[in-house]
């Protein structure tokens, strides 16, 4: 059987046509300068996120859960995942400052020092993991207390 062209909702087609018209009007202006660079950034941002960043963190999470599962500690996953993800998120957002890649411009433009960013990020990371470890320790202690005493 030959595949037949299905049109679909005319409302949706009309709506998307309007959207494309507006996007094209702005897009022509967006691409007026370095069009290749901008197009690479827009398409690249989507591809980099969907095909690199997301698979990487999903695989890291899966490996972590599997690893803990193999050790019989699957329920600990959240105590690793939360601090690790929050720390990674802060690094992702503030990478230029934390990595020092804008050191010179930042220093000369704002009169501020970039020295603190890496140290503060590391401290926040330590506090996140430390806090998570404390919560886990408390949970484990409670679980032990609640367990009925062994009968002799």
């Amino acid at each position, binding site marked *: 059987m030959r595949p037949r062209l299905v049109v*679909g909702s005319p409302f949706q087609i009309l709506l998307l046509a309007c959207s494309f018209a507006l996007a094209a009007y702005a897009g022509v202006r967006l691409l007026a300068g370095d069009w290749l660079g901008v197009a690479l*950034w827009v398409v690249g941002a989507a591809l980099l996120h969907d095909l690199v960043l997301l698979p990487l963190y999903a695989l890291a999470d899966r490996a972590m859960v599997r690893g803990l599962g193999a050790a019989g500690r699957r329920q600990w996953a959240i105590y690793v995942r939360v601090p690790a993800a929050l720390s990674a998120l802060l690094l992702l957002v503030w990478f230029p400052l934390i990595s020092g890649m*804008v050191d010179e411009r930042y220093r000369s433009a704002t009169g501020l020092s970039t020295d603190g960013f890496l140290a503060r990020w590391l401290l926040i990371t330590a506090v996140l993991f430390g806090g998570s470890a404390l919560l886990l320790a408390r949970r484990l202690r409670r679980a032990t207390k609640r367990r009925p005493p062994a009968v002799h």
Partner: protein
Amino acid sequence: MRDDDPRLPTSPGFWRSPLRGTWFTSVLGLVLLVGITVLFVTGLLSYAAYNPDLAPVNDQTPDKGVLGFYLFSWPTNPYWLYRVTQGLHVTLGIALIPVLLAKLWSVVPKLFTLPPARSLAHALERISLLLLVGGGLFEFTTGVLNVQLDYLFPGSFYPLHFYGAWVFFAAFLAHAALKTPAAVRAVRQRHGDEGQLESPRPEAPTVSRRGALWFVGGASLLLLVTTAGQSIGGALRRTALLAPHGGADPGSGPNGFQINKTAGYAGIDAKETREEAWRLVVTGRDGRTVRLTRTELLRLPQYSAALPIACVEGWSTADQWWRGVRLRDLAALVGYDGDPPDVFVESLQRHGAFRRAALRANQVADPRSLLALQVNGEDLSPDHGYPARVIVPAAPGVLNTKWVARMTFGDL
């Protein structure tokens, strides 16, 4: 069938997370619907705050066409207006990043669904989704890089972020129109219609959907509390642990508050700002010109105004106590007594986009708009614009020209 091989992302069975589902995606989608609308509106306000239709020097996007349809004269009241709208734009944008990432994660299986298009309408929708995701990530990335002074993007920030916003918002509107009804339904009914988002063979959960939402909310909260202080100022600035203008102030004393561009960065030579060398050249009606030394400016009637510096990068200072000559008094000196016009201000600064800026008549007329000579009871420091700088209520930081050399009053 190959489509059902769970080793391939094109198979629904490949996606194992028990969290994915219409309800989860809908909650995140509705948060973004509100949040991104606020970002778009505050972004348009920031664009208007530059008064781009006043003079070419203020206009970074001269070919905007109908996209400037809503422009209006930016007011001077309330004096903290730009501080709030732009602080909200940047802080909310940063705080929404976890929601955006979670939303994209929750719908990623749809990227791989086969067949690629079930109909013409579906094919168009998927093209639109590229603009939505690519455009959205482009806007967030350019914004986040710009506030950190990391100008990696291919071009000038203003046109890229402005036109990019319209491309993104065009796709966003269509997406919102197509998806909001179902999202509202899913949230109301506490579960979704049978969608393709639920995994057909979910792994045992390590966290509930509700717990995952709390986690996303917590991540937003973490970014919020480590950023907002740079816009609130005072003691809270120290809580902005990783934000570019958080932490300690650059100095102490009356001139110790946050700096956008230092004198060194702007290439200001101390020889040019010395009392003997510096003159303010004021030109007005029919070319009438006066040249004033700093001492002569100090002999003119001095006024005070408590106003903040609010930067397009989202950070701002608390109100500083500025003292100097009213802009409208300077206009009166050159023939505009009682009817202050627009003014074109030029700095000693040799390069940089806003070394020249135009202010509108309503800004010149405001009695709090000053050519400031002092701040917090002391002469301006070189980094804050010595010998003289403009300060206007509610104007974006870069329009408050520092190291002023020349002011030309008249209709622009």
